[in-house]
């Protein structure tokens, strides 16, 4: 087994998940111009819903996953309606705080419903494959492929369709969007829906190789922030690229530096980058 190869693959898997989460975050940032701290909670809820569908209702993994992304999509929309819409013309700090409030709420809600202990999610795709010396489980292949497909679709949607463009337009000037005849409420809801879907997708994909617990979103969301800053806030390609950068630097870092400090790597990376370039690397990269 070649470590480097294996670790590169591991990095690819994790990176894919990071990218998915970061994408949603960056989209919402674009619309709201606020970092949605509650995004990590959506991620966590997504995992739990899939888990419940499977364990309590005995649905197939894929069906559960589908239900989960839809439900979380709507929860996300709800959040926009109830929290961020009323706040649309208030200060950045208010936005951040509101988001944090939601985060705390959803987490204790999850604990109330599902309890605080580690849950673990079955997957029908547990088969182990061996690709030229690299150990690959089916699940991991699925993670990578699904993620990539999802990203391509999203990118086309935003670049090639008018509806996609409205998201970006609205991100830059709400009233301006009104004046050209865009229904900004629809756009906002659409964006949040997409973000929710991506979060739930990421979570449901990765849960079978990991664990499900109320605070599972914390670190992921923190890293997602690191990613979108590295990638330039609001930049789609930036988020994707950033996701993989972090994914790889972690798995490689854990191998050749120290596994105990592997969490710090991504943050250190960020601190270094912002120190050199306060606006992020690809800050011009408006999607």
């Amino acid at each position, binding site marked *: 087994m070649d470590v480097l190869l294996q670790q590169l693959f591991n990095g690819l898997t994790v990176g894919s998940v990071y990218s998915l989460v970061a994408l949603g975050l960056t989209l919402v940032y674009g619309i709201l111009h606020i970092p949605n701290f509650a995004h990590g909670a959506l991620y966590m809820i997504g995992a739990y819903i899939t888990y419940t569908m499977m364990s309590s209702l005995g649905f197939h993994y894929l069906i559960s996953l589908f239900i989960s992304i839809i439900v979380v999509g709507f929860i996300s929309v709800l959040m926009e309606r109830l929290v961020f819409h009323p706040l649309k013309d208030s200060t950045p700090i208010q936005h951040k705080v509101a988001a944090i409030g939601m985060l705390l709420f959803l987490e204790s809600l999850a604990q109330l419903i599902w309890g605080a202990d580690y849950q673990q999610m079955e997957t029908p795709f547990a088969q182990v494959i061996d690709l030229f010396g690299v150990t690959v489980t089916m699940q991991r292949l699925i993670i990578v492929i699904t993620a990539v497909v999802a990203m391509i679709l999203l990118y086309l949607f935003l670049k090639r369709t*008018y509806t996609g*463009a409205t998201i*970006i337009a609205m991100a830059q*000037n709400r009233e*301006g969007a009104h*004046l*050209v*005849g*865009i229904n*900004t409420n629809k756009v906002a809801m659409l964006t949040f829906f997409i973000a929710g879907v991506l979060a739930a997708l990421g979570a449901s994909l990765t849960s079978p190789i990991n664990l499900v617990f109320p605070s599972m979103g914390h670190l992921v969301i923190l890293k997602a922030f690191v990613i979108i800053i590295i990638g330039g806030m609001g930049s789609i390609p930036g988020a994707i690229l950033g996701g993989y950068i972090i994914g790889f630097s972690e798995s490689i870092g854990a191998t050749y530096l120290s596994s105990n400090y592997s969490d710090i790597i991504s943050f250190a990376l960020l601190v270094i980058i912002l120190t050199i370039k306060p606006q992020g690397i690809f800050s011009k990269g408006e999607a």
Partner: protein
Amino acid sequence: MLDLENVSVKYGNFTPVEDINIRVDKGEIVVLLGANGAGKSTTFRTISGLKKTSAGSVKLENEPIHDQTPDRIVNKGIVQCAEDRKLFPEMSVQENLMMGAYVHRKRKAKIKQTLREVYELFPILYEKRKNPAGSLSGGQQQMLAIGRALMSKPKLMLLDEPSIGLAPLIVDQMFESIQQINREGTTILLAEQNAHAALAIANKGYVYENGKIVVEGSSEELFANEKVRKAYIGA
């Protein structure tokens, strides 16, 4: 075509627009004159549905629109070119114009055509089509705003002080283009400080004084009106 009947607007307990009546007929150019804070922009915001009326009704071709959302109103053919432009700063000039044609998104060919027209009207925009709108100068942004409004081929176009920050030469061009746009069949409602140039091209006008309409009439009448001459033509 457009009728404002006894319209009042409130910001909290403050009433920037009170019981005004405005009538715009098809093919006309109508101008709103008035000091700062007189209520012109508020009127415009109300027509566009960005601000709700507290009393009275706004009718387009005799159907009320004051309860409609801004995007609906644009779809009905009323587009506004706002005082503070409301461009998409990080989008390129061309992308801004394309968004202007959002309501016609289905008809690609038509959009191309209109785009060409706008570039003819404002060549500078063509030069800068790849630059982000935010990097344009004050005046260039003004042109872009008007261009974007034109892209939706509106029936009725609301221009809020289009001459702000424009060089005299451009101001003249601007008013010419407005006339031209009007000739091509777009009805125009114009808010202006620059009463001289505005009245020169307008069919009729209304004069605001803190929220109420104090004088109205054909441009000739307004030219003749002493009060108006003193206050707004500065002659």
